[in-house]
């Protein structure tokens, strides 16, 4: 029974890595938002399972926050923003999707090697979950680096934050007050980004970052 409990935790953490790869694979914006909702859902399930294993009721609140805010509210609001701004719904990537996936695999391998070597003496359940969480963080960073569209960069940033939450819950200690503050700061950052996107769109008629470069002024 014990190993089944561990296995389900690993399965959910591995599922989060899998959904991060699915985020990297998408080439349409609405599909990306749906997959991000799935990402947040898997995170909520994972946190809830950790709460069950560790007998830590405050983690249930964390799971609920993840579910309500990140799986429901944020995707819906982003959906509305995209519709109102009329952003064209194809995601341009810097390098092809195949190369991005290969880089993603390399990052997962790197995080597995680093985490499993460095924490050789620690609790086996926590080690592997930490390794998966580091993978999710790195994949979120990869997404931010290889996408030109500002909306997909925001999604990448939020999936990175999901990875951090996974790491924090896995490591057995995350007081609720930290989570609330993190959640609110995310919300505020997101509102600010939304306002900026509106202003950028008004001014430049596009949210492609390349276009913004042209208006930066000469290098001195």
């Amino acid at each position, binding site marked *: 029974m014990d190993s089944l409990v561990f296995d389900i935790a690993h399965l959910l953490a591995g599922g989060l890595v899998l959904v991060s790869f699915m985020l990297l694979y998408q080439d349409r914006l609405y599909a990306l938002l749906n997959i991000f909702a799935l990402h947040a859902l898997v995170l909520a399930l994972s946190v809830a399972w950790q709460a069950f294993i560790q007998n830590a009721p405050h983690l249930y609140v964390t799971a609920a926050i993840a579910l309500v805010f990140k799986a429901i509210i944020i995707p819906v609001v982003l959906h509305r923003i995209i519709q109102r701004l009329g952003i064209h719904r194809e995601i341009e990537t810097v390098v092809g999707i*195949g190369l991005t996936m290969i880089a993603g695999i390399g990052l997962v*391998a790197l995080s597995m*090697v680093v985490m499993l*070597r460095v924490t050789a003496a620690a609790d086996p359940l926590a080690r592997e979950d930490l390794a998966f969480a580091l993978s999710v963080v790195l994949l979120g960073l990869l997404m931010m680096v290889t996408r030109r569209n500002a909306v997909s960069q925001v999604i990448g940033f939020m999936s990175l934050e999901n990875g951090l939450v996974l790491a924090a819950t896995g490591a057995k200690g995350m007081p609720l007050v930290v989570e609330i503050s993190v959640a609110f700061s995310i919300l505020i950052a997101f509102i600010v980004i939304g306002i900026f996107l509106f202003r950028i769109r008004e001014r430049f008629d596009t949210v492609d970052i390349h276009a913004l470069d042209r208006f930066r002024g000469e290098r001195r």
Partner: protein
Amino acid sequence: MVIRHRERHESMGAMPVAAILWCVASLLVAGVFSVVLGRRAGFHRVTYGASLTACSVALFSAGADLTLYGGAASTLTLPLGLPWLGAHFRLDALAAFFLVVVNLGGAAASLYGLGYGRHESAPHRVLPFFPVFLAGMNLVVLADDAFTFLLSWEFMSLTSWALVMAHHQDRDNVRAGYIYLVMASFGTLALLLALGLLAGPGGAYGFEAIRAADHTPGIVALVLALILIGAGSKAGLVPLHVWLPLAHPAAPSHVSALMSGVMTKVAVYGFVRIGFDLLGEPTWWASMIVLALGGITAVLGVLYALMQHDLKRLLAYHTVENIGIIFIGLGLALAFQANGMGWAAALALTAALFHVLNHSLFKSLLFFGAGAVLTATGERDMEHLGGLIHRMPYTSFAFLVGCVAISALPPLNGFVSEWLTFQAILQSPQLPQWGLKIMVPAVGSLLALSAALAAACFVKAFGVAFLGRARTAAADQAQDVDCFSLAAMFLFAALCLIAGILPGPVMDGLSPVTLALLGDRMPVQMGVPWLSIVPIAESRSSYNGALVFVFIAMSAGLAVYVIHRFASHAVRRAPAWDCGFPDPSPVTQYTAGSFAQPIRRVFGTLVFRAREQVEMPPPGDARPARLHVDMKDLVWDILYAPVATAIGFAADRLNHLQFLTIRRYLSLVFLALVTLLLVLALWP
């Protein structure tokens, strides 16, 4: 510490070595006679007949030594070469196996040459060098000291260069010969340095002395790098492979078969002999380098092959891929040996050596087929061929067997060596080093990718050249070739089938080699019921080529019988359906370039920077649209072009030394003298 079970059997004296040396001597004599009498009409029959007999005798002696005597060592020293050293020759298990490979290829090429040699336009440029080339390869495998080894290696390179330059009127052949000569000299230099380092300051050139000596880890690392460069460039490891696709197609077809199928294996022998036998205990990071090189070579080789439309160049690039697969097996063997897992190392080494044998069989067969096509149509370019299966039925059947074998499809032999390599990869999670834990699955996926791409490559080669409709008049009027060429091709096709159905005896034949090199062997295969092979244990995995073949034959036969008996067996001929718009012009069928286009889109944009440009004339304009494909060879651009430019630059600068005054030359001499005296004064 692993105890090396070398010299288990008593030495056999000198008789088996002497037998093979007599064969070598007769090959050399045949070469000398061909210099004098080569221009006589029909003399090629004498030369090729002589080399066929010599190679067959050598083949049987080496085979007997391996199977009947279990690879017992026999040595001989001849008073040739350096006066205080002599020439040492040794026939042990490893040498016996590679002699079997070399002489099997040599015998088949001689048989092929009996028929093919009739069409040779410059026999006096080919006939003297052919038997001498075979002699050189045999000598490399037999050599037991550094001097003989290097001398035979250079001999082999020079004779093959002469054969590449046989048709020197063609500018491309001259360029190919030049690049080959440069790369061969570079490789020999690397081997010279490696053997010099191993011999040490005492000058102990004999391999016995090198085996017994202790080498520091620094020397071992340096020697390994040098033999990877030296033997690897001759075998065709990326990035030192550039000469291979230029030189192999330029030679006459039976020589191409020898160069691709046999000479590359002699290079592998050089690596195995020095890397496994002389260097002693391997280190795990050495295996990582070999694995990485093998994996990259395998994938790049087959991707290059897919983009070719010259039949022989495609086959030459494909040799590069197979060398990659062999080096993957060798790297795995090194990794297992370094970690003390002798049984797994034996499995990996058996897989690599089995692939050596298999590749020499099917690559020679394919080159023989390409030579037959060249003889019959005068074309090497696939885009000018097509429909040959109707005009040359026997050649196309043998070529088809070669294509199926090289694509690693059961029940032929290519599948067996690949299956064994995969089984070796499945043993490697037990390796403790982290680098290997990441590298081995990556290399395994590269191997799987290269196997699938190889099948694609040969569907293209056979489909465009032999199937479909003839694209030119030359292809339409082709005739099948003579009986000697066909005999050589069918012999190898039969051997491919036999090695696929009966892999157990081959694996048992390889066990003396693994015992001598690694101190361990795979379980005995001859006793397994139903002729299966069981690499580790019955419960882990097993494969039975014979039964798979029987099942497929029975199922197909049953289906044919039932249908022809109970359903219809009527056949009507009509024009092709082609969705109702059949086009009589053969130009509308797929060409080699168009067949490779999907794969070029997927892999080529990254590996070759392939870019397509379409010139579409405006509406109303009746000109045809044009498609340009632009591909770059990144290895050449990144590595060779800068090196060539740098050498040219340095040579230009140094040219000034030719035009100094007498006073300047005298002052150079004076300066050198003073510097040497200063060094002597300051030496502690």
